[in-house]
């Protein structure tokens, strides 16, 4: 089992400064947490992030100074911890450009790319300042004459997805909510998977209808058990609220952020080592 499996460090090195990245999962569920920590350790800069609802993943990269732009519908810690402090600071200080979206316009932009279109019409937005603020343009529908908002294509360089199961070739199964992961995989130029478990290909042949991402779309597979922590990943673990709180305490300064990243390093690298041993 070699295939597309690589270490977390190798996979993170595929990401270049300035890349547009779609991050899978939603809020604190099935987020590519280990991967974004590695991007922060590698001191990536100028990243542009796409997500419907972000939390730890978007905030941590903002805390690390890695983010130039976000295209999101929501970034925050819900009723658990409220606003995302580093995201908020980045936007308020002007270092992070927040391109204001509705979750539905993020989806429309991803659909445009997935469908090979320059832009995708979207319903809604009536009466909202979002369209004018962000610069969504309208066309007249050629049949009805009504005005329709078009969202320009969002074509991430990579979709970064933390999945429940993957094989070495990149077939991926997601348990629990799939959110926008499947659409992101289609919209992106390529896909990097981190996976709780690496399985043999026979595992996917058994339930092909459960394969959310087919291997031919995937460039890299990282074995990352616990890779969504401190978020949750069904059926293995729930959101770790204490650990999320610890992150929020540490995100205020460069030094404490470094300590946070260090404290996760051993766990983040555990899978990569295991792949050439136990899992093969």
């Amino acid at each position, binding site marked *: 089992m070699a295939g597309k499996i690589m270490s977390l460090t190798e996979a993170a090195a595929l990401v270049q400064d300035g890349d547009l990245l779609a991050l899978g999962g939603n809020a604190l569920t099935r987020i590519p947490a280990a991967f974004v920590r590695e991007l922060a350790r590698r001191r990536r800069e100028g990243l542009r992030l796409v997500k419907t609802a972000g939390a730890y993943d978007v905030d941590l990269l903002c805390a690390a100074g890695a983010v130039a732009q976000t295209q999101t519908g929501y970034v925050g810690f819900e009723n658990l911890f409220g606003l995302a402090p580093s995201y908020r600071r980045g936007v*308020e200080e002007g270092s992070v450009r927040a391109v204001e979206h509705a*979750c539905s316009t993020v989806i429309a932009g991803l659909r445009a790319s997935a469908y090979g279109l320059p832009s995708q019409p979207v319903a*809604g937005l009536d009466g909202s300042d979002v369209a004018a603020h962000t610069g969504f343009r309208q066309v007249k529908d050629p049949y009805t004459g009504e005005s329709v908002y078009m969202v320009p294509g969002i074509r991430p360089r990579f979709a970064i997805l933390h999945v429940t199961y993957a094989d070495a070739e990149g077939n991926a199964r997601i348990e*629990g*909510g799939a959110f926008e992961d499947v659409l992101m995989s289609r919209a992106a130029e390529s896909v990097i998977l981190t996976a709780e478990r690496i399985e043999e290909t026979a595992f996917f042949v058994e339930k092909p209808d459960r394969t959310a991402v087919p291997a031919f779309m995937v460039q890299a597979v990282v074995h990352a058990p616990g890779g969504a922590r401190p978020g949750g990943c069904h059926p293995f673990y729930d959101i770790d609220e204490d650990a999320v709180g610890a992150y929020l305490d540490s995100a205020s300064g460069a030094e404490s952020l470094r300590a946070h990243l260090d404290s996760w390093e051993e766990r983040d690298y555990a899978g990569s080592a295991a792949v050439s041993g136990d899992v093969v």
Partner: protein
Amino acid sequence: MSTALREGASEEVRAAADRMAVFLSRFIRDGELVFHGVASALPMAAMVMARNTHAPNLTYLNIPGGVDPRPSFLPGSTVARQLMEGALSYFTLTEIFDLSARGKLGLAFLGGAQIDAQGDMNLSFIGDPAAPNVRLPGGAGSAHILPTARRTVLWRTVHDAKSFPERCDFVTASGNVDAVVTPLCIFEKVDGRLRVKTIHEGVTPDALRAATGFDLGDLERASTTPEPTDAERAALTAADPEGVRLREFI
């Protein structure tokens, strides 16, 4: 931790949370397709409660995608896997937006950091959007859902003049608002403007005016919000025994 939350909350906060959950649940009609999104502990409790009381045939939709889930407990994140437990089918957020866009979403609950006199809401920026004093989280799906769902009910757990201005600093979403539920009152939208429908027990008209940033006009038509009944309180406690709804007040 949730138990600690409930134990630690003041009597006043517990009463406000119970009231708001119950009042939200009353807007749910039996048989309706009902959606709540991210950061929505109160509507989550209200929907589970409503299903066990007056709306047994509601269809419960949420972001993880579980249709009509039977969660083993109510999670602190309203995007957590518990909202898929016992579901009959999966229906993703993307599908929910499409459903709403074609006019088939019955009711959606949406929160706002500011809700203005027109019933428009802001979850984007406080101050100048080009150089904001506060970058808020963003409106999630609200700019899409508010104008396309058949009905929406807004809520906010803080009722003060900053939260209820004459006009939002930025209109994140605008649309089919049926009602706004706050700790002090319930607004309805009439002729494009919020009007107080009922005032909660113990809230004086003067206190309500002082806490609201826009002109409430004549309050004589406003009656008193019927307090939660014993049956409603019991159903709420059964739906949310750990008091996750209190998280919105921390």
